[in-house]
């Protein structure tokens, strides 16, 4: 379980995360919503250790993230808006590189499985830089999952993928969650929330203003009120904001 307690982060004078509490359990699929600048990317980067927080603590399965050995990072697979791939290497070479970096056994097999999982086997020998944005994003997902991480964090990566691959990724994250992985994805796509997530969390100005299990929400009502919710949370939720 990833548990963040009272984490804060600022860039200069701008407070991006403020005393935020968050948890992600194995088997859970959490959709992270919020307007641009709400702090979604900063939260994702903080949870996996890419960004240091100014205060608070992040525990991963009981171990403090900042004090633990680097091996704890093996538990994370992170897909960010940038692909984190090498454009002059082929799809296969990129995945082989990451498989070697993680010192994985049966590398060829894993690379082939990952390419197949993302329907990229036929493009394996093409340079990554020549692929479309959507294909690069799929390869990036394969990269993040090649070492079979326990927690997979996606930062608005489903943008730019066509419907078929969005559905494919929904199936993929549901399968991974079924196998006990914890999934967190940030998105602006409310349909994606209701087709994939088990819990929805809304960030507003660096704080969580809403956290509910998806099964108790009425999709139509939520979609109607969402814009007001992220723009004027106090008016919609009342002064005592709802949190779980």
């Amino acid at each position, binding site marked *: 379980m990833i548990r963040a307690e009272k984490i804060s982060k600022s860039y200069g004078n701008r407070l991006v995360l403020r005393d935020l509490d968050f948890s992600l359990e194995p088997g859970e699929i959490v959709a992270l919503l919020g307007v641009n600048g709400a702090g979604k990317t900063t939260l994702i980067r903080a949870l996996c250790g890419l960004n240091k927080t100014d205060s608070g603590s992040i525990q991963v399965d009981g171990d403090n993230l900042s004090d633990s050995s680097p091996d704890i990072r*093996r538990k994370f697979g*992170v897909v960010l808006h940038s692909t984190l*791939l090498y454009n002059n290497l082929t799809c296969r070479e990129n995945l082989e590189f990451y498989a070697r970096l993680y010192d994985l056994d049966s590398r060829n097999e894993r690379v082939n499985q990952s390419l197949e999982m993302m329907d990229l086997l036929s493009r394996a020998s093409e340079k990554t830089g020549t692929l479309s944005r959507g294909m690069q994003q799929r390869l990036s997902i394969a990269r993040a999952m090649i070492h079979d991480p326990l927690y997979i964090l996606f930062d608005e990566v489903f943008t730019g993928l066509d419907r078929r691959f969005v559905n494919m990724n929904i199936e993929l994250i549901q399968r991974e969650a079924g196998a006990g992985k914890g999934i967190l994805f940030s998105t602006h796509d409310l349909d994606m929330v209701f087709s994939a997530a088990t819990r929805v969390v809304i960030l507003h100005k660096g704080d969580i203003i809403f956290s509910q299990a998806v099964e108790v929400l009425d999709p139509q009502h939520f979609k109607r009120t969402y814009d007001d919710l992220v723009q004027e949370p106090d008016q919609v939720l009342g002064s005592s904001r709802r949190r779980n």
Partner: protein
Amino acid sequence: MKFIKAVYAIFSKDLINEKRTFETLGSMLVFALIVVLIFLFSFDLSVGLRKEAASGIIWVTLCFAGTLSLDRTMALERETEAIDALRMAPYDATVIYFAKVLGNWFFLLVVAGIVVAAYALFGNVMLFTGGFIAILLMGTFGYILIGALVGALNMQIRSRGPLLSVLLFPLLIPLLLAAVNASSLVLTGNDPAGLRTWVGMLAGYDLLFLAAGIMLYNKILDE
């Protein structure tokens, strides 16, 4: 063992990338050969003077050519933010440091070999001596140890080109002084005691820069 494997994985990834693009070695070689040939053909020097001048000309050339490599290899990691994926790997960031040191040192040694060969050929002087090669190895190693550190800093502050040189060259002055003097003495065969002092300084700076790299690289990437 895993640490060495990870260093080698990053190093060989950089080599594959270079094999595809020839961007780093290509620009370094063109620059270095032009500089050496201009120096050689601008002055009508005797063989003896060409030998005495070799040390300064070769180190100036390598010093500037090296910045092209340092800038390019870190730009490669910044292009698609792949540095974040490297930082997420289950190792201390010194893995990235050693891989970058190894890669940049390799590129600089290739250029050094060709530059020295060109100088020897067109200047008609013998430079391939054991002593000179040893000093080239030590000097370029020290240069890259500090260069890889400053290259990472340059990447983090998202600057390219001039700032790398502005930060790097002042730090390199003692190392370059030692390298130039030691090379000059080993080529001319003068002052063995002085040579030992300069070689000692060179070794000292290599160790100092190695320690600084190991201690600071993590912190630079974390910021």
